[in-house]
């Protein structure tokens, strides 16, 4: 079975007070993260950690080689769910924290996920963590990571998206692929959430441009215990990033 880690930030009063950001508080953060947690625990998976608000630190995603401690946190669980405010720089995610462990934000240029045996999947319920026309900005984060699940524009916090965590987890444990679990689970097909899933592809999958979508992580990678899980990608063999998104 799988291990999971969760970091969820609902309140941003410290970041505002420090003049770091004008980001507002959220309302349904813990509805989603608690729901994700309870469904995975209910299916027999193991929680590595669950931190909230100021207990979430930017060093948890930052690579050990970059002064962070990801190997004890984000890179130490099969799936890592994070929820906070986000944005991107040239398609590379940046996420806001409500405390400065060393910095107030994490920048994905300092992520290298999947270097160990864990961190197959990252799910970031945060706005605009990449650009649909700059997905290449995520290239460096794939150091063995299978799929990044994020957003190419806003992800809404509201009463109609309060059960997204449960929906994603139900999809995962019902046997949907990870890619489908994210896009379907965070979409209520009413508000404009903008989910996107991104994975690396080697030359065999890229197939000189005649892409073997059927062989990709997007099509075949399931959650541990609920279907096929592909072997870790070899970063030096990545020739393309594949991505899938919904649009209204």
């Amino acid at each position, binding site marked *: 079975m799988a291990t999971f880690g969760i970091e969820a930030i609902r309140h941003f009063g410290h970041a*505002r007070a420090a*003049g*770091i*950001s*004008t*980001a*507002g*508080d*959220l*309302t349904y953060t*813990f*509805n989603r993260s*608690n729901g994700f947690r309870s469904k995975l625990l*209910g299916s027999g998976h193991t929680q590595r950690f*669950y*931190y*909230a608000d100021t*207990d979430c630190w930017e060093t948890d995603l930052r690579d050990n080689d970059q002064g962070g401690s990801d190997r004890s946190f984000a890179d130490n669980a099969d799936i890592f769910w994070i929820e906070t405010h*986000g*944005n991107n720089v040239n398609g590379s995610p940046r996420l*806001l924290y409500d405390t400065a*462990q060393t910095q107030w934000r994490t920048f994905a240029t300092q992520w290298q996920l999947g270097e160990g045996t864990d961190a197959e999947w990252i799910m970031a319920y945060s*706005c*605009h963590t990449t650009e649909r026309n700059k997905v*290449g900005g995520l*290239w460096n984060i794939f150091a063995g990571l299978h799929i990044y699940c994020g957003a190419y524009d*806003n*992800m*809404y*916090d*509201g*009463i*109609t998206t*309060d*059960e997204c965590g449960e929906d994603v987890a139900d999809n995962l444990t*019902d*046997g949907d*692929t990870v890619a*489908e679990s994210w896009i*379907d689970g965070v*979409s209520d*097909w*009413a*508000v*404009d959430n903008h989910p996107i899933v991104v994975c690396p592809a080697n030359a065999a999958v890229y197939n000189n*441009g005649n*892409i073997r*979508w*059927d062989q*990709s992580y*997007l*099509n075949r990678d399931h959650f541990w215990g609920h279907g096929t899980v592909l072997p870790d990608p070899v970063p030096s063999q990545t*020739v393309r*990033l*594949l*991505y*899938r*998104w919904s*649009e*209204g």
Partner: protein
Amino acid sequence: MKSSNLNLKPTLSLMTEKDFIQKLADTLKNVPATVAVPSLRQYSPALAQGRADRFSRLMAKTDARFVSRKDMLVQPHRTLYRLAQNARMEVHHASGDLRFVAGLNPMESLFAKVETREVLTRNVEAAASKLDIRQWIGKNEELPFERLWQIKAASVDQKGQASDPVLCRAIGAYRHHIAKIPVLGAASAVVKLAGNGELDAFSVSVRETSDQLLGTERVLRADAGAKQLYAQLASLMGKSKSAPFEMATPQWVRFGYLAQSRRQAQRVLVPVFMAAIDIKTENEQQGYIVTVPATSNPSLLPSLRGADIPADLERRIRK
């Protein structure tokens, strides 16, 4: 609820809080003076499973997987039915929400080309008609098509050169209306098609009204609703160097009934004002769905308070 930036934000420097609220109010057209408050049918797990049986019988007319044996698993919030060929069906006990998932892998059965919106809309409408989706609504109720969604995929190389997209799925979303008033929330019905016209998923999230009306309520005026929406947004934004109206761009503002999420029991359809508001600043981008009651009857206030963290979470020790 098609997204369209309402351009409620003229020149920033000229916008005041009062202007912003007035613009929100101006967008709330045709708000009735009074509204009926329908009560909703309540389900037990057994009643919800009965609804799933009806769904199954109807689907069995065109899909053999519903005729074969079903593996039934009762869980705390729902009953899950495993069907042949990796398909599944579920019913949620609190809401009676129904969903069929065919079990196709997401990059199987792609469309041969990226079709036009008109073609895709026609295709999902034809599928919805075949599924007879309107049998799930009551008298004096409607379930019109609301919006087409698409799922696409592409690739990019390290230099940022992207391939042309492929079309994976077309999704038709439908909106429940009762006496011409929309029931706001997740899409009320969803038809999801794969490339060869195969049904990939179908869900019905219509709150079933009972024959009883709880009563008729006076609706708050649009300006009062707009003021409340702004107050809620301002409360979330807290104290910062910019006022909310300086950063906010409403996407839409609506009056309607509120359908809560599928795992939540709901006794009545409560009238609300709801707005989708984007906050764009140079640092973080934010999206809020703000919801406030549209009557002053305290017994009709939906719970709009978010959850807290689990009581058993351990605090982290900072080294």
